[in-house]
Each structure stands twice: as C-alpha cells, then as structure tokens.
C-alpha cells in the first residue's frame, strides 16, 4: 500500500468537511470499528468501510477522500452509526461531500431527475394536463368500482384536515396504486385533499446533497400546504419522500411548522377507531415487512406499520433484524438512479434476499417505491430464491382485505 505523506495531508480539511454540515459530528471518532461491524455491506465489496472513509477525512487526506467511491457506494442507510458512541453520522458526512460535487459529474441520472423535478414540479416530468387527466381517469374508475356516481376526488380543498403528498410514479406508472389509496381514504371517510399544483413529496436532492436543489423542489410543496390551510401533511408510503418532507422541513422550512405524518400512521389510526374495516380472513399468505431506512431508522416509523399489518394479516412474520436495526435493501442513497453501480447493488441486495428467505414469506410489503424497484430487481437477479416472493405496497394488500362500508 502507498505511504501517506504528511506533506500531502491537509490539516484544515476536516474543518472544511465539518463546515458542510450544520453539526460538527465526526472528528471525535474513536475509530473503534463499531460502524464497520454495523454496516450491512462493509464486507460485501471493496471501498465500503465507513471507518476507513472517516479515517481518511480525519487524517486530512483530501484527495483520497474525493476519489473514494465510498461517497457514492454508501447507501446512506445510517445503520453503521445508529448507536455510534461518539454520535458520528456517516450518512450526513456522505451527503455533505456529495453536495460539493460538480452537478455535471454526479453519477447516473440523479441530477437529471432533480433538474426535471425543478422544471416540471414533479420528478417524473408529468405534464399538468397528463396529471389532471390521470386524476379524472382515477375518479371515473372509482365511481364505477364504488358504485357511486357522485364520487369526486377532493382537489385543492382549502381547510381540509389532511393534505396528501405522493410520488410522481403514482401518477405516471402506477396510477392504480394511487387509486387504491384514494379508495381507502374514501372507505374511511376522511377529510383530505390533493393539490393540482404541488403534489410530489419526493426529492432526489436528498441523495445528491445539493441543498439549493433540495429547497427549489420542496419549499413550493410546503407553501402549497400552507396555502390550502390544512392540518396535517400525509406522505405516501415512499420512504425517501417521507424523509425528504420531514428532514427537509426541520432543516430548511422557515414558515410555521406543521405535522408531517406517514400514511401508515394515519391508516393505523383509522383501523383502530373503526373508520376503516378490514377482513382478517382474506390475507392468508405468509407476509413480511421491509422497513425502508428513511421511514424506520431515520424517522422512527416502524411500530405503526407492524401493528397495521398484524391487524389484518393472519401470518405475519418479521425479518431479523428489523425496525430501526433493519438492513437497507441495497439501493439506498439514490442507488436505483446510478446504473453504473448495478453489480454492487445486486451484491448488496443478496443480504436482503437471505433475510426474506429466512422468513419463508410469500409476500413482502415494500412500502417504498425505491426499495420496491430494488426488490423487483432482486426477484429477477435471484429468481430461484427471492423471485418466489411477491412485493407489494401496504395499501394494495389492505385493499384486498378492505370491507367497504354499506351505503345508506
């Protein structure tokens, strides 16, 4: 191995990296190795050890740090430092460094998505016309399905209790998923609204670390919420959308704070108070639940989904570990949008495959769109094992068990 020369070290480098983050949180690192043991992937492929990466920063190895592929390999899942005794947050350091990147040189098509999102107001570049047409179509479908010709999607309703923010994929690719969710809302009879102006809660700048982009994407959404004067912001199942909304609000929102909740927290509440009735005898398969890191570890939502799942699923089994100790699916940190690292993503995903297989689950609830894409890839990559279990969103599974209220 090459010798490190003190003349090449920059004693001010760590100070500079610290400046990228609000909290100076890594230089007290003890190099104890807890993160190496905690990272699910430090032994999957090379250049994947958080301790080594931090060591380079702390030594002042500026050049080597910027050349270290760890910055883009890291899935930013935060498992390594969840209990770091020195309160270091490797994901925060990684994001800080990514934020220094020349936007043209960001791997994959992460920046393309960001740029399009800023331009179109949503990450899939859906036009306003297409969006409204899709909503119309969903409305028509639901009228038929519900047998209620009066049914209308509450759009831009001022003063509604809930503002529902979702993922552009729900409009462009999986409109049926949005339809499912709205059906649940209908069954529960809640007072909610969907904006026709700003509705995409996702923000890929969460992964690129570019804070100017982040604000350009998310601030208009919060402004739209404020304009409509709603009580609570409900975010779709998607983990990174949820994290973007919550973390982004804490970090960048200058207006009045308002509650941002995960849709599963709301659905659980509705099941508990009897507004939403589910038939416990419909879902009989063995089902497990994947915790998106952004939802569970980073934002603390892992109990509600389980309680919700157990309320109607007969054979629910947990993966081990789970909850705030879960393993990342292998595609965190924007991994899906960096095809050049697909081989590594596949290798990382094997750990998740093994975990699912150990449960014997026939169905995996994968709440996050990003995790869902990875899970679907894993089904293709590991057809003999993982390929046998089906990946679904929580709402889709709930729809199967949904008992629609009898009309008066």
């Amino acid at each position: 191995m090459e010798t490190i020369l003190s003349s090449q070290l920059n004693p001010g480098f760590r100070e500079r990296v610290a400046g990228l983050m609000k909290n100076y949180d890594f230089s007290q690192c003890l190099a104890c190795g807890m993160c190496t043991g905690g990272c699910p992937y430090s032994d999957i492929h090379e250049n994947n050890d958080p301790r080594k990466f931090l060591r380079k920063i702390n030594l002042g190895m500026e050049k080597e740090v910027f050349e270290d592929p760890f910055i883009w390999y890291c899935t930013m899942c935060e498992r390594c430092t969840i209990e770091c005794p020195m309160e270091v947050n490797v994901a925060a350091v990684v994001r800080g460094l990514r934020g220094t990147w020349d936007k043209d040189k960001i791997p994959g098509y992460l920046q393309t998505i960001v740029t399009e999102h800023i331009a179109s107001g949503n990450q899939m570049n859906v036009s306003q016309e297409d969006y409204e047409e899709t909503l119309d179509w969903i409305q028509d479908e639901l009228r038929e399905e519900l047998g209620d010709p009066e049914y209308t999607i509450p759009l831009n309703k001022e003063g509604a209790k809930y503002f529902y923010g979702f993922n552009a994929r729900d409009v462009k690719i999986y409109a049926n998923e949005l339809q499912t969710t709205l059906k649940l809302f209908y069954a529960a009879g809640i007072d909610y609204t969907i904006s026709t102006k700003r509705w995409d809660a996702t923000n890929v700048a969460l992964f690129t670390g570019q804070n100017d982009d982040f604000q350009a994407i998310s601030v208009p959404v919060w402004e739209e919420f404020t304009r409509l004067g709603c009580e609570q912001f409900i975010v779709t199942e998607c983990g990174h959308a949820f994290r973007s909304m919550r973390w982004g609000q804490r970090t960048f929102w200058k207006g009045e704070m308002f509650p941002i909740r995960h849709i599963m927290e709301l659905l659980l509440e509705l099941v508990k108070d009897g507004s939403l009735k589910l038939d416990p005898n419909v879902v009989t398969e063995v089902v497990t639940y994947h915790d998106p890191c952004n939802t569970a570890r980073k934002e603390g939502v892992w109990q509600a989904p389980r309680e919700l799942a157990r309320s109607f699923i007969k054979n629910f089994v947990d993966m081990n570990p789970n909850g705030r100790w879960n393993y990342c699916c292998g595609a965190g940190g924007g991994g899906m949008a960096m095809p050049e690292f697909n081989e590594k993503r596949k290798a990382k995903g094997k750990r998740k495959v093994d975990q699912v297989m150990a449960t014997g689950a026939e169905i995996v609830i994968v709440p996050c769109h990003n995790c869902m894409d990875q899970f679907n890839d894993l089904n293709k990559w590991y057809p003999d094992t993982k390929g046998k279990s089906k990946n679904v969103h929580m709402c889709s599974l709930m729809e199967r068990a949904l008992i629609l209220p009898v009309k008066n």
Partner: protein
Amino acid sequence: MVVGAGIAGIQASLDLAESGYFVYLVERTSAIGGTMPMLDKTFPTNDCSMCILSPKLVEAGRHRNIKVITLAEPVGISGEAGDFKVTVKVQPRYVDVDKCKGCGDCGQACPVTAPNEFNQGLNTRGAVFKRYAQAFPNAFAVDKNGLSPCRAACPAGVNAQGYVQLVKKGEFQKAWQLVYDTIPFPAACGRVCVHPCQEACYRGRVDEPVNIMYLKRAAADFAYADAENVRLPEAAPPRREKVAVVGAGPAGLAAAHKLVLKGYGVTVFEALPVAGGMLRVGIPEYRLPKKWVDLEVGLLERLGVTIKLNHKLGRDIQLENLRQDYDAVFLAVGAHQGIRLGVPGEELPQVMQGVDFLRRLALAEKVEVGQRVAVIGGGNTAMDCARTAVRLGAEKVYVVYRRTEEEITAAREEIREAVEEGVEFVMLASPAAFLAQGGRLGALRYVKNRLGEPDASGRRAPVPIPGSETELPVDTVLVATGQRPDSEGLGEVALGRGNTIVADPLTLATDVPGLFAGGDAVTGPKTVIEAMAAGNRAAASIDRYLNGLDMAQGRTLGVPAEDVTPPRTDYDRVVREKAVVPPEAEANLRRKDFGEVTGPLDPALAMQEAQRCLSCSGCAECLECVRACTSDAIDHAMPGETIELKVGSVILAPGFSPYDAKALEYYGYGRLPNVVTSLEFERILSASGPYAGHLKRPGDGREPASIAWIQCVGSRNRRVEHGYCSSVCCMYAVKEAVIAKEHSPRGLDATIFFMDMRTFGKGFEKYYNRAREEYGVNFVRSRIFEVRPGVDDPSRLMIRYGDEEGQVRYQEFDMVVLSVGLEASPEAVRLAQTMEVSLNRYNFLDPAPLSGVGTDRPGIYVAGAFAGPRDIPETVMQASAAVGAAGSLLAEARGSLVTGRTFPPERDVAGEEPRIGVFVCNCGINIASVVDVPEVVDYARGLPNVVLSQGSLYTCSQDALVNMKNAIAENNLNRVVVASCSPRTHRGLFQETLREANLNAELFEMTNIRDQCSWVHQAEHEKATAKAKDLVRMAVYKAATRAPVRKVSVSVTKAALVVGGGVAGLTAADCLSGQGFEVHLVEREDRLGGLARRLSEGPRGEDIRSRLRELVDRVTADPRITVYTGSEVAGVSGYVGNFVTTLGDSRTIKHGVTILATGGEPYTPNEYLYGQDARVVTNLELDGMMDDARVTGARNVVFIQCVGSREPGRPYCSRVCCTSSVKKALRLKKDDPARGVFVLYRDIRTYGFLEELYEEARRAGVIFVRYEPEAKPVVEKADGRLLVTVRDPILGQDLLIEADLVSLAAAIVPAPDNARLSGLYKVPLNEDGFFLEAHMKLRPVDFASDGVYMAGVAHAPKNLEENIAQGKAAAGRAATILAKDHLESHGVVAVVDPTKCAACLTCVRLCPFNAPRIANYAASIEAVLCQGCGTCAGECPNKAITLQSYNDRMYVASVDGLFEQAQ
C-alpha cells in the same frame, strides 16, 4: 459524619476513630460493606474480596467510637465547617438489632420471594433478610415497600398478598386466619367476591392477574375441612358495653365480628328466619352453597355473637327500645326490596321480582317458572335469576337489557357462564308492557333502543326508537332492575335517595348519637366486600364512640395512592405463565341442578398459582417471621425516626451505581438471558453467590465453553452522556477472564473486546500481560456493534465486528459479559443536593482541583467512586486522605468525644488449679434443633476441671453475658469455654466479658458447634450431638492449659519524619502539621518541590507553579515543620512510636512515624534518536520549552508514547504520560490549527474524566495513530530532515511524517535512593523498585511494619492530584498512631526463649513486620511490632520461639482431649 459505608466509608471511619474522633457512619442500606462484598476476587492479587474486607467490617462494627446508623440518609444540614448540624432520616428496620442474633429463623419462615439485590437479582431472598452472610449489623431487616396493590384495592383491606404468600408455602390454615382477621366470610368471599384485588394485581401487567379470590377459597376450604377445630382469634377481655346490630347480612355480621373480638356484647337482630343476608338468600346455591354461609355464621356464634332470627325492625323490635337497651346500634338492614318497573301488566302473578324469587327459593319455598322466561335487567341479580330459571327447567331464558354488552354491569364470568348454559341476551330492549293471554302472562312487549349521550352514570343512555315495538312470547318474567332498602321501623332516621339511610360516609354515624348505619341500606345495592368493609368501618367508629374518642381523626376512605407500592420496571424479566383456573362443571351438566359450578382448587395447584404472586410490596405482613423469632426481635409497627447530629465535618462516600445496560438495547441485556453484567458475573463466580461459585449460564445453568467480555458499556459514550472512562472495567474484565478460566476445568475461550486496554494502575500491566501470555485470554480491539442470538443455537450469542485489520468477522459465544461502567447513583445525587455541594456534568463530585478530597463547601469532603470512577486502593487512599483533611480542620477537638474502655484489674490466676466454666449456646433453635444442648451441658459437667456447665438460649445476649460475669465471680472460675458459633464474630465479645470479670482475655476458649455441628449435620442429630461433645471436650482440655497474656505498652513520640520534599511529602507534612503534630521534612536536594517544579500546567489547566510556590512557602513558614534540605537519611533505629533517625550530618531526629515520599525520576531515553537530534525531546523537557521558537514554529509535532514504559525491564505503565501528551498536543493544535499534531500510542490511557481531554484533542484535530510494540514508529534523519514513519492500523498504510519536533513520553522510574531507604527502614520494594505496600487493595499507603507509610511516586507513578491525595492519606494514616499517647501490643505475640536461640536470623529474615531483632546474641521480638502471625514460631529451627496462646502444649492437650474418650 461519614455517609456511605462502603470500603471508603469504613476506612475513613476507622482512621477517624483511631485518631481520636467520634464517628457517625450513616448507611442507606441495612448493612455496611457497599459493593466490595459483592465482588469475587480483587485485582491484581486475586485476593478474595470478602475475605480481605471481613476483618474491617468486624472492626468498624465493633469500634467503640464508631456509631453505625443503617437504613439512614441525611436529609438536611446547617451550620458550617467545625459545627454542622445534620438531620438524618432513619427508616424503620422492623427488627430490633440488639435482640436479633442473626440466626435466620425468620428468613426461613418468610414465604415471600423477592429478588436478591445483593446477588444482582440472580436469585431470591425473603422479605426479611440479611444482605449477606458476613453483614454487620449481624441482624435481619424487613423490606417493606408500601401497600401491595391487591391489599390497597380491597375495600375491606384484606391482606391479599399476605394470604397468597401463605398459600404459596402451603400454610392454608394460617392463610385462612389472616383473612379471618379482617372479614368473617372467607369461604363466601372466596366464591362470590367481585375481587377488585385482581383488577389491581401487577401480575396482570405481565400476563394475567393472580387468581387471588380462588386462593382465598382454597384457604377456607382447607380450614373448614376440620371446621370444629379451626383456630379462632382471641377476643379482648369482656367489656360491659353492649351493641345491637340490625340485620345479619355481611355488613351487620362484619361489624359484629369486629366488635365481639373487642370484647363488646353483640346481639344481631335478623328479620328472616336465616342469617347471612344476601349471601344466604340472594346468591343461588350453585354459586355459593348455603352450608358455607351457615358455617361461617356459626363461627361468629362461637365467638360469642348472639343472633336473634325472625326479629324484624318495626314489627318485632323497635328502634327506640334498642337505643335504650344498647350502648350503640348499627343499622345494616340491607336492600332487599325489588324495584317495580311501572309497566302495564306488572301485576300479573307470573311477573315476579327477582330478589323475591331468589329469596323464596333460598328459604326452600316452592317456586316455579314456566317454559319461556324473560329476566329484565343486566346486573348480577339478573344473571342469578336467569341461571336459576335454567336450572328450574325453563326451556328458553332471555335476559332483556336496555343497553349493550358494553354497559352491562354483571361480572364477565357470570355472563360467560350464563351464555354457556344457554341463556340468550336481548340487548337494547326496554319492556313496554306485559301482555296477558288467557289471564296468564303471554308475551313481553319491548321497545328497541339506540344509545344516546352519556347519562349521570357515565354510560350512554338508551333512547327508544319510535315504532320499534317487538313482542317476545314468554310465560314468566323476573324483574331484576334494582333493589332498595326497606324503611320500615326507621322512624325519624333521615332517609336519602331511594330510601337509603343517611350516614357519614367515613364514620357511618347517623345524625342520632350512638346510631350507625352501613352497607346496602346506606349505599343501595353494592358488593359483599363493600358491605363487610362498611361493617368494619362502623365497628371501628362504634369502638371509638364508646371510648369517647374522635371518630374521624386519622381515618381516610380508601388508601392514598402514594401509600401503594409503585409497579416495578423489570417485569420483562418475569417468566410468562398462565393463571391456574379451578375446575368448572360442564355447562350441559350443571344446568340440570344446583351443584356448585366452580370446583375446589387442588392444594398443589393453589400453591402453584400463589407462586405467580410478584410480592409487590416486599413484606406481606403475614407475621410468619414474628411467630418464628425466638428472641422477640421483630416489630412490624416499628416507627421510623428523624435524628439531628452535631458533627464537625462530613465525609461523603456514597459510592456508585453500575450503569444500567438495558439502556443499550443492542447488547441484548435483559432480553437475552445469557448476557450478564460484570457485577452479575462477580456474583456468579463468587463461592457465596447464587450458584455457589459454579460457572453457569443464568439462562439454562449450562457451563459456558466460551465467554466474551464487552468493554465500555456505558462508558466513553457521548450518546448516553457518559463521556468519561470508568477506570476500573479493563482490569476487572481481565481479572474475571482469568478467574473464569481457572473455574473451567475443561477449558474456556475467553475473549475481551476493547478499544484501549487501560491497565494503568500499580501491577496492572503485568497482570494484563500474564492474562494474555500465560492464561491465553484473547484480546480483540473492536467496539462491537451488537449481540444477537446464535444462528443455530439461539441460546448462544453472535457478535459481528470489524477486527483490527478492518475485516468483518462473526463469532459466537456461550455467554457475554458486559463490562458496565460506573455512574453516580440517584441517592448520591440527592445526598449532594442535601449537602449543597456541586457536581460535575456527569453528576460525580469531582474534587476541587489539587485538593484530592475537597468539595466546594468547607468541612465537607469526598472519598471513593463518587469522587469519580476509581478502584479500591485509590478509594481507600482517598478515604484516609479525607481523614487527613478533616483531621486538620478538627485538630482542636481531637479526643474530646471518644471514650476509652477501662476494665477492672486482672486477677492473678497463677498457681491456681484450673476452674473451668462451660457455656453452651442454643442459638435460638439454630443449634438446639439439631444438637441436644442439655445433653452436651450435662456431658461437659463431667469433664476434668469443669466446675460449672450451663446452657442458654443466646449466650451472646446481654442477659446471658451478665449471667456469665456473675457465674465467673460466684464460682471463682479461672477459665471459660463457650461452645456456640464463630470466634471470628463473637470471640471479642466474650473476651470483654472475661475482662469485666477480672480475668485475662486469653483465659477464654471457644468452639464452634453451630457451623461445625448443627449446620453441616442437619439430618444427623445424634452424630451432631456426639461431635459437639468432642469439640467441647477438646476445648476444655485446651482451656486448662491457657495462661494469661500481658500486653506491652510503649509511649509515642508525637512527631513525624517525612522523607522527600516533593508535592507528596510537602502535602503530608502540611496535613500533619495541620493536625497539630510536629514534622521533620528531609529533602535530598537544596530546594523543595521535587519534579513538580518542572511542570507548568495540570490536566485541568491548574497553575502548578503558583500552587507549588504557595505550598512550599506555607511549609517553610510553618513553625511546627522543620525542613532539612540538602540532607539524607543515614541511619535509623527504633520502631513505631519511637524512631530515631540520623541524618548525613549526624543530626538526630526522634519521631513516632515515618513517611517515605521520595518521588521518582524521568527515564532518559536511548531510543528514537533522543540525545542525537535536538529536535527529539522528552515531554518533561517540552513542558519547559512551550514558548520556545522551536515549538512555536513547528509545523509537524509528533508525540511518541510508552518510551521506556511497558517494555521488558520496565514492564509497568507510567500512568501520567498519555494525559500529559494529550494535553500538550491539544495546546499545540489549538495554538496553530494548521499544524500537524500526531500522537503515536499503544493504548490511550486517559482514565476517568481525563477522557474528556482525549475527546477534545480529537475534535481539535490531533491525529492519534496506534502502533504495536512489534512495529514501533521509526525516527530517522535524512538530509537533515527528521522523519517519523508509523503504520496507520486503520488504513493499513504507512504514514510518513516530516517532523519538526518529536516529544517522547518517557517513563517514570523510581528514585535511586529507594533501595537504601528500603534497607534502613526495613521496608520492601517491588520488582520495579517502587515501595511495596502492606496490601495492594486495602493498605495502599501503609507498610507492613507499623508506623512507616509511603506517599506519591515512591509508591508508583501517579499524577499531581493523586500525589496530593496520597500525601494527605499518609498523613491521615500516620495520625492514627500520633493521636495516641501509648501503643499497646496485640495480645498474642511471639516470645523468644533466649536460652534456646542460636541467633540464626531465620526469624529476622522471615518476619514481614520487622519485629525480631538480635541483641546479646539472641533474638528478641518487639511486642508492639509483632502482629501475632506465628511465622517465626513455625520456622524457628530450635523451637526457641513460641506464639503465646498458640503453643504446642495447648494443641497437644486439645488432641489429647479428643482421643481421651476414644480410649
């Protein structure tokens, strides 16, 4: 006052008491000892912790000038240094310490099983317990913790936990008695009570509540199996007052029960032809067979209650007459009148009132129902009616209720059983009319309801739905919608809503004096237990009324919430277990007759169910202990007290708490049973622990083949706000690993996961090396991420970790030990608040800088782990230092409060024939239950020279000791033999009695027939008795040869010699002078100050130079201190109390004690180009050149650690260098952040709060690079550049530093003079050349020879703060000699027969205490120095030396005695 009786508190108390102060030793728990008794072995000597502590416990416990106050906590302080007033709150012990003999009979009898906190909850103890076997006071204590939730929830306050615990032990009869003490209907209540106790039961928070009610029934069933012979409570002596009770229901009879037991004449008037009220005529046979009610009514009659049946108020008797004829009247007429619905058709004969229906059946009247029965109502009466109708043969039975299942008031199990029996429920239905058909009832018309808003009862009110009338064909209706009292005959008595009698809710007094009312008659229909509660309350009021007392004073309705035991937090450790359910008759069978539905609970099952009780409040007050105690020591009503003590100074030594590892869920503690804490592991290893010293896993008792230790659990962790290092964990983990390996004959894989191995104490590094090299303990440098269940065997534990090379590894172990850190206990924090002293950010009482023991309140000092995590020697040292400091403050008061003990002159027994008295102890039943004591007493009487032989219940009790003293005088005894328990605890006591009786203490002989006979031969009474006789005979033979031993006394020169004028010596001199003693301070150099002169700044930024100047000036100016600079000790003679030291210039100094504080020296490196390149300096040199341009201009500075330390030839850690380098590195980095500052180290040893400095240095950008001793950094010169190469272990790459300055952390080496002084004062050095203390743990500043002490680096490397503490400690210890006018020899010393002595020097060489000297060609032993160990006597080749009281003749006599009988 010393607060906290761990080793710090005990040492401080002993030192204070020995230096002439009276001490209050205040301890929070029931025994002194603290944490040390819990530990198995101690590092680095592997001594048994309990064995070395035990003598100190006895000494502190028995010391005349130490008053131990247990279960006590200071709650307030006023005044100032020298004159404090401390308020101390003392919790009741419930055991009289003077009466308790510690025999343990109460503990055996106690049914409660509570977690044994001393054993870290690994096993259980009783609610009456002694903390540990060797505890002082040697007395039990009762653990009471409020009122159990079950007892608090019972309206009548029945002691549910008490009887459940008795049932658990199979004491059914006593359980029944305990219930019967409170209520007269245990059998009835055990069947039909609504059991609020079970709703409150904390077991319900774990799985299901304990089935308390059925346990009560089990107790009653057992007692009544032989009802004739049940033991009824004793009534008080008869009184002349008479009380009339109207109504023989549960309320009336409960009052009668209480009143008759108080001695009153009680007559109960009952309207019905049977007694028992609703119990008898309201509850159907299948729930409560009448025979039980009749039996329990009969018991009341046996107690003397007169019951007059068929006496109805207003009909047969008049209230006015009763009031005239009786001194008080209690109205308990119940509520027996059904309430009419007011619905058309109600007058039809087939529409009956439910209560009437049930009553008539109970009175054996003929009552019939039709085929289709509707019961109106949703209460328990409705269920009773419905289920009775089923049994009477109805085909269809409906319960018609106006609300829903949610609101129904009947008990859940009643509803369930009714449904099982085929009863149908018509909910949300109100009767509108009863329709006749052919003159008979044909149908019920009802209207359907919906639920509206909540009504006054809080339940949602039914609202009729118009047009919803429905008809239900029925031929019988039973109305059960409520009852009200019958007001007939009440005359002027005020009535309230629903005909109820108005009475004061608390006292149950009516407006009419002497007239009371209670039960359903006052409240409307309620439960049986509430009725009995009312009866009890009324009885208490009547008793007060008849005694002219205030009826309300001090009484409350219900139990205040704060009196109820709070739920515990560790319920997750309780093993889940379903409640035992009694057998139940099958629904199909039971609906056919009135046989009891619920069968009896098998006694074994009842005991099993009672096991589930969590003993919430600790003591259950079942009083088994009181019954078991033969010395009448237990008093459950003992009050607590608050006392005020006047003291001059306070030493705080409350110790620490182990970190609660549950907070770090990733280690699995509390979840995975084979993950234990280090303190639990100590108990597992301990021979006195829960597994008797067998290394087993708590989860399954299996012996582990591999154990992992995880370091820094709750230490060095910012996330949990424990940023400090706990200092002791590395060493204790290494020790535990070594001991565990010794415990495992089949080999044990022991692995320690750590970050920095902090073995910085004296002798620690060698221990670490031995653990690695000789014992094969594995050391892995990694902070592991988590502990998970094993892959194949989930009882094993899997650890995934990043190893030193950065590889991820998986390893499974059988067991994991968490090395939990030390934290400040909440009690200690409270104490600090009370004492108004400041704590640091971690809630420790970090002593004031460079004080060692000072707090920010003058007169209050701190010692032990509360002053910051520290090990035992440092704790003991600090305790003595606090004594030194307190002694300086209170010098004037010394000797003013202590009392000595004077004994009458000894009688000269020389030449007398032995006259032996033998005293044999029964020890309550401890000895007597196995050994036939009278037989032993008789037997002893026949032994030679025995003139008296007696037995006694407790020979150690005060009266028995007085008796012994009298017996000695009366019988002119000159020898005494006691056959009882252990001489270790009791010999001193008996010897004092001999002294009081004019006998020399050595005329006493003791033999232990408890441990050696009754305890070890419990099942063999005859053999045990025979052995006791043998032991007594041996003792008698030996006693006959005993001779008096005279103590030698010498005077004390009240001056100290301190050798060494560094900080330790200066501090010791200063502290001794402060205590009023003359001091001679000898310093080799021309100036005082030692090495500290070369230091500028302490680790916490202390200005060392000015502090040192102050100290030197003070010492120099002190008139009591004579300073001899430029002088050396040349010769020494004398011994403790009377040394004469000659200096080099022939001046002589007379002194009573000597303190060696000779310091140390810096090692001169010959590595890393030191001496060859000016840029390579030592840390000490760097300290002097911080402002030099060579430093200020340096771009890259490299520190290299362990230069000369931890190396072959100098294998110890120099302790101070890590902190010193980190401190300097931090300063250099702060001065110029652009500079590269590197610290190359092996383990960073910034222990305790110094860890903060290390963290600060990392944050500031100092780079730490660890190196292995096999691959040390290389320092080279190339082209004038100074190059340092070291391998970075994390990146696995070499780091090449172009250094401008290299600073070496050079070792500390002992002072060269040590060897010479060692010879002069005859005190030993260790292998490294530092002075060797008397005991590594408990005598850290003493030498084995009395009167010589050490302080500072002379003992081992240490920092300035620690030097100061040890200087004060040496002064504190020295004062224990100087405070005395005379020193007395230990009683038992060795003596030389000069005629046999060949002056061979064997004894001189062997004696660790320097007692023998040669004079006139023969050895003589200085009695004051001799410790009586007997080594010299054993080794003397010519048998010239004998140890008094242990001579051959005595033992030969003893053995002769043993075989005398056999021949």
